[in-house]
């Protein structure tokens, strides 16, 4: 055992490795990975299987079945077996209608315009279905690691919009997971890949999964992964290849109409044919419907023609992403291929000819995202305070506000690095106007109707003034998860209002709280215990953080008196933490945080000075 050497007043607690996982919540399959002894790897179930099919079968009066068994039964019980739920995340009833016949489920309108799926176990929202998948992964993580997790990094397609991200975060919360970060899938893949090969330079990640497509252009420089641009389509993936084959089969059979329950069987058949064509030049299919049975042969060439428009669509997104990054194809050193659908041979050849550079798929394209997420989770759990690695990501879609005439004024452009805060000033257009409606939108188009509406709120109590005299500053803030909050303030009067943008398709906060409570059964004590535990963790974190900061910079940046005050505060919080009054602990945390503010601020300034100090004075 190593000896822990510590000076008086410092933490004598040995540095504890905190358990954290990375989760790839995929359209077709999901995975969980972690870093153990410096090595990132995916975790297997008790039968040695790493992949978890993202399929949930609901049953009456018993827990849902998730994974391989659910998938095997999907064709027998299509209405209660939810497949590819990721495609429904953050979507409204309108979107469902657009997907139309592709979905075999029955929908029930839910609160706030969010569709619910009707099952024998009751109406389920896509968020709940995703939470059921996440719970299985969480349990697998806890069981494999043998302890409680501090949290998880969960990956999302880079092109996911605000509503889809929020829905994913809601699902995690419902599953009882502390989200350390929502990480973009191509960025996660780049981490796994870049660290593995220790490469530098500009590269592209082409990520074609079951239901989503992302393209990201990144620059890797001294351990910093800087996303230059991202693009894609959050409703395009291998599922569409299956649908193309299914349509072809129906055409061959003479345009027969499918019964609702038959669709899953046809799609399973189509997926098998697609997979067979990866290694074979042709494949035989047979399908029977309403007594009519059909047999046919699909060649690889025919298949390639069927999916050609979809592949072209991905290449258009690639072209736009390169343009946004101001990078030419010659400058791309390598293209990293991610996602199961990149196994399709014509995807590979077309991407290769577009970029004119060598493709890399030497890490298993199914596992690379989860592995990257695990590496980032290890950093965010605080296990590697001195790590060189840093991820700088961007927002995929522009954010803006509705202005006169149904037009959108962009406040933050797509591909802006996050976190970001930006303000825009507006004024009143009527004399004596005392309120202003604020409508937040996401998208690239100029008209409100062509963009996704994220939130509406009102700033009230503006003092009456002549038109054009009030000054309303609207501030957009996007955090490191890519999630938005908006506040508005009238500058003369100081009237202010703020919203966490909760897209209408997400769950209202109250709803989540209720669901979490439900999942705890009726035990109020459980909830109390959970709150106490959370406050204790917060207190420990603060004490540990402050102790290490004092040890590093305390003597240099603080007077003896200031140091004594902080040390006293630490002792006090430690005493409070021993008790079980969670309100008192929360107060203690707040007080000590305030007391250490000035110190933290000095440390940051000091850090900036040091960051620039490598440069000569002459340059400045």
């Amino acid at each position, binding site marked *: 055992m190593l000896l822990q050497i510590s000076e008086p007043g410092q933490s004598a607690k040995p540095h504890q490795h905190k358990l954290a996982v990375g989760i790839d919540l995929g359209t077709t399959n999901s995975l969980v990975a972690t870093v153990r002894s410096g090595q990132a790897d995916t975790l297997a179930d008790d039968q040695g299987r790493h992949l978890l099919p993202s399929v949930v079968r609901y049953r009456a009066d018993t827990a849902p079945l998730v994974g391989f068994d659910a998938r095997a039964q999907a064709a027998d019980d299509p209405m209660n077996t939810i497949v590819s739920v990721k495609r429904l995340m953050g979507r409204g009833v309108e979107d469902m209608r657009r997907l139309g016949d592709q979905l075999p489920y029955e929908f029930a309108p839910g609160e706030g315009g969010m569709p619910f799926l009707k099952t024998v176990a009751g109406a389920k929202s896509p968020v709940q279905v995703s939470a059921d998948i996440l719970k299985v992964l969480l349990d697998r993580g806890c069981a494999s690691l043998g302890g409680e997790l501090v949290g998880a990094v969960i990956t999302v397609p880079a092109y996911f919009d605000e509503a889809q991200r929020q829905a994913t975060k809601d699902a995690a919360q419902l599953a009882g997971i502390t989200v*350390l970060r929502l990480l973009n899938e191509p960025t996660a893949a780049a981490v796994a890949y870049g660290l593995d090969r220790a490469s530098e330079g500009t590269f592209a990640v082409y990520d074609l999964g079951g239901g989503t497509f992302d393209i990201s252009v990144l620059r890797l*420089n*001294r351990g*910093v992964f*800087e996303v230059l641009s991202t693009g894609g389509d959050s409703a395009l993936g291998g599922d569409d290849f299956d649908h193309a084959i299914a349509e072809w089969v129906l055409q061959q059979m003479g345009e027969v109409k499918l019964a609702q329950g038959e669709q899953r069987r046809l799609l399973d058949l189509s997926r098998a044919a697609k997979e067979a064509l990866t290694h074979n030049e042709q494949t035989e299919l047979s399908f029977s419907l309403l007594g009519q049975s059909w047999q046919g042969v699909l060649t690889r060439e025919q298949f390639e023609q069927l999916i050609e428009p979809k592949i072209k669509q991905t290449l*258009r997104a690639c*072209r*736009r992403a390169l*343009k946004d990054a101001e990078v030419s194809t010659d400058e791309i050193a390598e293209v990293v291929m991610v996602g199961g659908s990149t196994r399709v041979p014509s995807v590979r050849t077309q991407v290769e000819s577009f970029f004119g550079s060598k493709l890399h798929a030497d890490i298993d394209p199914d596992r690379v995202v989860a592995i990257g997420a695990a590496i980032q989770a290890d*950093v*965010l*759990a*605080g*296990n590697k*305070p001195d790590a060189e690695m*840093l*991820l*700088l990501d961007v927002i995929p879609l522009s954010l803006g506000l509705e202005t006169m005439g149904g037009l959108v004024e962009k406040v933050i452009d797509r591909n*802006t*690095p*996050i*976190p*970001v*805060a*930006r*303000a*825009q*000033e507006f004024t009143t257009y009527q004399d004596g106007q005392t309120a202003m409606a604020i409508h937040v939108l996401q998208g690239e188009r100029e008209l409100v109707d062509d963009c996704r509406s994220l939130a509406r709120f009102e700033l009230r109590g503006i003092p009456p003034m002549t038109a054009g005299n009030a000054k309303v*500053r609207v*501030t957009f*803030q996007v*955090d*490191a998860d890519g999630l938005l909050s908006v*506040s508005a303030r009238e500058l003369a009067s100081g009237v202010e209002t703020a919203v966490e943008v909760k897209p209408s398709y997400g769950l209202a906060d109250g709803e989540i709280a209720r669901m979490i409570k439900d999942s705890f059964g009726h035990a109020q004590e459980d909830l109390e215990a959970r709150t106490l535990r959370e406050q204790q963790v*917060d207190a420990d*974190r*603060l004490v*540990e*953080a*402050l102790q*290490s*900061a004092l040890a590093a910079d305390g003597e240099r940046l603080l007077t003896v008196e200031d140091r004594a005050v902080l040390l006293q505060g630490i002792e006090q919080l430690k005493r409070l933490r021993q008790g079980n009054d969670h309100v008192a602990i929360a107060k203690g945390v*707040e007080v000590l*945080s*305030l007391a*250490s*503010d000035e110190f*933290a*601020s000095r440390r*940051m*300034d000091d*850090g*900036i000075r*040091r*960051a*620039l100090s*490598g*440069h000569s004075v002459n*340059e*400045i």
Partner: protein
Amino acid sequence: MPISDLSGNVVNARTNGSSTLVMTIENNYFALFGLPETFRVDTAQLSDRYLSLQKTLHPDRYAHLGEREQLRAVQAVAHLNDALSTLKSPLKRAAYLLELKGVDTDASSTTVSDSGFLMQQMALREQLDEARDAVDPLLALEQLLQHTEQLRLQLFGRLEADLASDDPAAAAQALQTLRKLQFFDKLRQQIELLEDQLADL
């Protein structure tokens, strides 16, 4: 477009519960990067220092510390990202330099009154429409783009000289040139949009 993101005030905007965090991070974007206050900026140096500052300020660097330290870092990085986007774009950089000189760059308060320039812009937009129906539209667009690039470069030369001067008349001149360049910016966006549409066919 109102350029209110130049004030630096956003740094103080976020509150955590009852108390506002006070930041001492350098407000002036040029000073933040340790760069001279000039229109010409060494972009390699800019991105190099951006990475150095990110490595110090990014919230992930404070992952092992408390929530407040991370919140502070989020604010600092939001400020840093604003600074980068302002200094990276020549037009935003010029507007920022003018704001530092105390010039109001709000679009509604200045208009371009140079009729010769407006005629030229009309002509260029007509050429854009004609390019759509040309025998080789992509070639026609490429030529138009090259032509406008030359005009833009001339304007940038003038802008740089005017921004370097302390004369208030030069600042007013620079503001006019900036407006003209914004016309060109819009035109370039339209050219690129058409290029995209043609390439998608």
